[in-house]
């Protein structure tokens, strides 16, 4: 009896979580004006139309460049800063909680001045600017994840290496990096998902059609007069597949990062 109600509740939760996604997929496979819940004649025409257009590949490429570019910046910076906070007593230690609290400030407020700055230095409409903005946004959280993972590495390991004549930089490279690998995986998930999904930086900091990223292109589907829902949902499904897959593969590490963060 108890087990039954337990599994019933689990089923309800899963149903609520999955239902909107299924609806999106259903709409992307339905011809226009489909009235039944399961499309009577499923069609892939919306996908075919999108995939046959060169623009889609350009947007996907832009999204990938910005996501991977941000990861390349964030991973080393957060590893170094996280190590510093975890292992040394210095001003970085005191600055760390404030660093972590900064993302509570409303990011929309900063968009106008940031766009103006970028205009001033000629970086408006540039994927590099998107990479830097996204990186700055992700770093506080990632430093924290890395700090927690470095904390869990036994100090004696490093002391032994130091006694054997290893210098600090080698230590970071040979000992800390391999041990902090799960932390880097957690950072990877966070950055790839967060940056790929980001809409407001792309909307605020770029206007060139050729520099669109996927979430912005999806919103662009909303018509002022009539919206092509099949096409929009097909685009939406194609946009959500990569982050969901990355997340499912690396989920274990991400959750460990979160747990480490809040249990410490």
């Amino acid at each position, binding site marked *: 009896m108890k087990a039954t109600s337990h599994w019933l509740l689990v089923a309800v939760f899963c149903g609520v979580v999955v239902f909107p996604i299924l609806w999106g997929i259903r709409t992307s496979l339905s011809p226009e004006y489909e009235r039944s819940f399961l499309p009577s004649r499923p069609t892939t025409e919306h996908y075919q139309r999108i995939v046959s257009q060169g623009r889609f590949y350009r947007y996907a490429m832009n999204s990938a460049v910005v996501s991977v570019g941000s990861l390349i910046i964030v991973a080393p910076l957060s590893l170094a800063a996280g190590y510093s906070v975890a292992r040394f007593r210095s001003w970085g230690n005191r600055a760390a909680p404030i660093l972590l609290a900064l993302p509570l400030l409303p990011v929309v407020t900063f968009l106008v001045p940031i766009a103006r700055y970028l205009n001033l230095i000629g970086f408006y409409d540039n994927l590099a600017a998107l990479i830097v903005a996204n990186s700055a946004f992700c770093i506080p959280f990632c430093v924290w994840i890395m700090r927690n993972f470095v904390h869990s590495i036994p100090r004696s390991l490093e002391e032994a290496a130091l006694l054997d004549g290893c210098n600090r930089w080698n230590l970071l490279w040979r000992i800390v990096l391999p041990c902090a690998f799960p932390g880097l995986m957690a950072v990877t998930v966070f950055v790839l998902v967060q940056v790929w999904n980001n*809409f407001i930086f792309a909307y605020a900091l770029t206007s060139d059609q050729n520099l669109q990223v996927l979430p912005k292109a999806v919103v662009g589907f909303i018509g002022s007069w009539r919206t092509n829902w099949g096409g929009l949902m097909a685009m939406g499904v194609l946009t959500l597949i990569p982050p969901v897959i990355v997340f499912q593969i690396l989920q*274990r590490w991400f959750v460990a990062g979160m747990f480490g963060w809040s249990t410490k």
Partner: protein
Amino acid sequence: MPAHKRQVSATLLFIPAFVLVVLFWCVPLIPGLSLALRSPGEAGSSTRWPSLLNYSRLLGEQTFRHNLVLSLIYVVGVVGMSVPASYAACSLMSRSARGTNWFRGMLLVPWAIPPVVSALIFRNLAGAEIAPLTKLYRLVSGDPNLLPLQDSFWAMLTVIVHSFWRSVPVMTLFLAAGMTTIPKELHEAAQTDGATPLQRFLHITFPLTRMHLAVGMLLITAFTLQDAETVYALTGGGPHHGTEVAAVRLFKEAFDYGQFATAATIGSFLLAAGLVFMLLYLAAFRRAEVTL
């Protein structure tokens, strides 16, 4: 290693991340706030600075007061719905070891989906004539011709439900982290003493996850308050300002209408709220580090 050398390497390691963050989060503050204090002068004359004209104009405007009220409704709605649902999800996760990983992966999927994509899915779920949410709303309201996104109440409810759907994973993770810190023996002892599940929740689970709950609620409040993109994609602030929370108003003023001074003025209100959350967060954080 000598003390000063340690200081140097600590600083060297920390500084690149620090510089990037300060450049992004702190430097835009000053020009952003100064923009709010700039007001257009009398017809044709140049702009005046500093002036509180933007503030008095906005505060005197009924639409803006409505924006603020909607923001409040949005935050209270999302937090109020996520907390009980997250505790429920959490207890489902911890009770059975079997299938927990699978369930957790499932539960976290909404977090990984692009917010604008899920918002647009909800726009379709409540916008299309034949969509399930539309049908549900019609059933509940008793109005067979209800168009939810054309009605302020149902549109706002949809916005809240969507953010609730997205925020449950984060909240659940926080609470789950808190629950792992509770020793198993506590629950076992209470159980042998004949405590009901409700009593165990009220006297063990809730008090011992209080700090985690506080931090999770704070995060969700801050992120809901500043959320412009999902509301923008779901309703565009409509019907007729019916879902125009302050963050969406800001976003539209800045990027759809080019009214940067107005946007900056709204921004300073959100910023003030954000600073309060930051201080609360730091305080909660300090206590959590001591007590956990």
